């Protein structure tokens, strides 16, 4: 079973959410955003080169031009390899754990696995981020020393250039269905199975 919905992220970009139901205890959520558009690539490259050319006419040093080319290339590679995320997948298997995979535009993939015994809760939280106030989904990890405490907060779905966006619509679909404290119960709700 599979369905697909589209949302916009916090900057108004488009996001597609795919949900796959493998079995009652296993689900996959996949959030993908459009690939790097030729338009923005051209715009950035042109502006860097124009600035470099302006500088070149001022100081008449050809080093500026080669530096600009070098910077553009390195910047593009770095952006594709470390910043631009094309797809993020959240695979949840009840009783086993949560696997988060992000695939970058360069093809690099990074995977994190969180054991279900370490997960304390999954919550949607509100935060002030830059000049915005946003909702984000995160996983709370149990503190091994103190069972009631939270040792770490792991944000999920860091798609697009923003570190903590949540697929946004008016209001976010998951939120409208949940009480104000915005807690999911552990595993159970996400996998559609009570613990």
């Amino acid at each position, binding site marked *: 079973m599979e369905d697909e919905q589209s949302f916009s992220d916090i900057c108004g970009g488009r996001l597609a959410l795919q949900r796959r139901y493998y079995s009652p205890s296993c689900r996959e959520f996949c959030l993908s955003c459009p690939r790097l558009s030729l338009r923005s690539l051209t715009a950035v490259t042109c502006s860097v080169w124009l600035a470099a050319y302006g500088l070149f006419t001022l100081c008449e040093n050809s080093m500026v031009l080669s530096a600009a080319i070098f910077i553009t290339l390195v910047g593009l590679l770095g952006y594709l390899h470390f910043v631009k995320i094309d797809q993020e997948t959240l695979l949840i298997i009840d009783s086993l754990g949560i696997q988060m995979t992000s695939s970058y535009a360069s093809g690099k993939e990074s995977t994190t696995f969180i054991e279900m015994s370490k997960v304390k809760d999954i919550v949607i939280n509100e935060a002030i981020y830059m000049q915005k*106030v946003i909702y984000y989904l995160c996983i709370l990890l149990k503190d091994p020393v103190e069972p009631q405490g939270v040792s770490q907060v792991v944000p999920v779905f860091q798609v697009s250039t923003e570190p903590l966006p949540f697929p946004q619509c008016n209001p976010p679909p998951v939120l409208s269905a949940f009480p104000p404290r915005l807690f*999911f119960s552990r595993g159970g709700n996400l996998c559609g199975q009570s613990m």
Partner: protein
Amino acid sequence: MACRGRGGPGQPPSAALSPVSPGSLSASRTSAHNICMVSDFFYPNMGGVESHIYQLSQCLIERGHKVIVVTHAYGTRKGIRYLTNGLKVYYLPLKVMYNQSTATTLFHSLPLLRYIFVRERVTIIHSHSSFSAMAHDALFHAKTMGLQTVFTDHSLFGFADVSSVLTNKLLTVSLCDTNHIICVSFTSKENTVLRAALNPEIVSVIPNAVDPTDFTPDPFRRHDSIITVIVVSRLVYRKGTDLLSGIIPELCQKYPDLHFIIGGEGPKRIILEEVRERYQLHDRVRLLGALEHKDVRNVLVQGHIFLNTSLTEAFCMAIVEAASCGLQVVSTRVGGIPEVLPESLIILCEPSVKSLCEGLEKAIFQLRSGMLPAPEDIHNIVKTFYTWRNVAERTEKVYDRVAEEAVLPMDQRLDRLISHCGPVTGYIFALLAVFNFLFLVLLRWIIPDSIIDVAVDATGPRGTWTHQHPHSEDKVEDSGKCKTR
């Protein structure tokens, strides 16, 4: 579901919200407002303004309005927090400049405040305290965005010294196009109207309130063999600590069974300690130092007479609290104090040592002759005077009135600024208002209102918080899920 609890038909043409108002605008109660309280002063900071905002918000929530509070970050307390009954508080990361008031440039807070106003679908901005730069900033931005504005003034000012002149000028600019202003007493209203050159018709008087259940008398806690005078105030010049240092030795010589308990901290504490030292009154004058609000009642019930020596006061909460605890109040006749309590419960004196001593002697005489009513009776009279529910009801009327008024469009606002605030200041602030508007246009271009998330209402007509109550059947499946929490 996207649009919750808007102002209803009385809604003015609000440019800020129009792109996102869908056709599903439900016929919500016309009287339900989305209110945003803005002030630099809020919990965990303690004081009159803070508790005023909190109590008023709670009572407004009870009346079915949506209320949020915006303040600046206090230490590690930043971000978004929920208080009792889903009162949402935004602690914004803005720099604190002086005395818990943020620095202002009139512009830097616009992006965040606009984001909050849009995502919370705020219709009325209610700013508190003229000392708070953030409150004035919010008023300025709200007017640019075309939202209704209300301002509550909590203090009295002079007219003579440089700082008052400057603050008054700023207040004139800030309030000249504000929809409505609330003052805590008639004296405060007069003062504000004069300071800010306002039309008195847009100024309402709504007094502060006390929670009478927090201040109940307990006659068994006091010793009837001696007479105890309680003073609870900050020990600063404004509160008349110098007068107090004159009264103590005079009366202690006259009445050997007179004791003083003084609560509060401040730069003038040293004077009281000197007096105590010089007249050897260590066993009769107790200095308690700073008191927490919850401890005030325990101090008050130990005394028979409450003395207030303030030199200026917009609305004295302390004397209401004392009277609610059943004490006889002796106070200076300054500011709004004569309006606060009826003649029978208060002895008013001129702010001089001689007059205050006479007032205290009169109180002591009444006490000895048994002419004073019992503490329980005083409490029962006072508890009906000032309640937060009453304050909320009256504030709601102000909101209803404001919601029907139109916000000044940009050109009229500029005219108002130029004609009201003097040639130089007027033009400067008109220019700033134009810049602010252009900044807003830029922000709207970068992040259009339509892509800003709508926040989940915790309170208000569609508040999710109230759905926790068992009477909402449609949330049964949710409560089933909640069990596993």
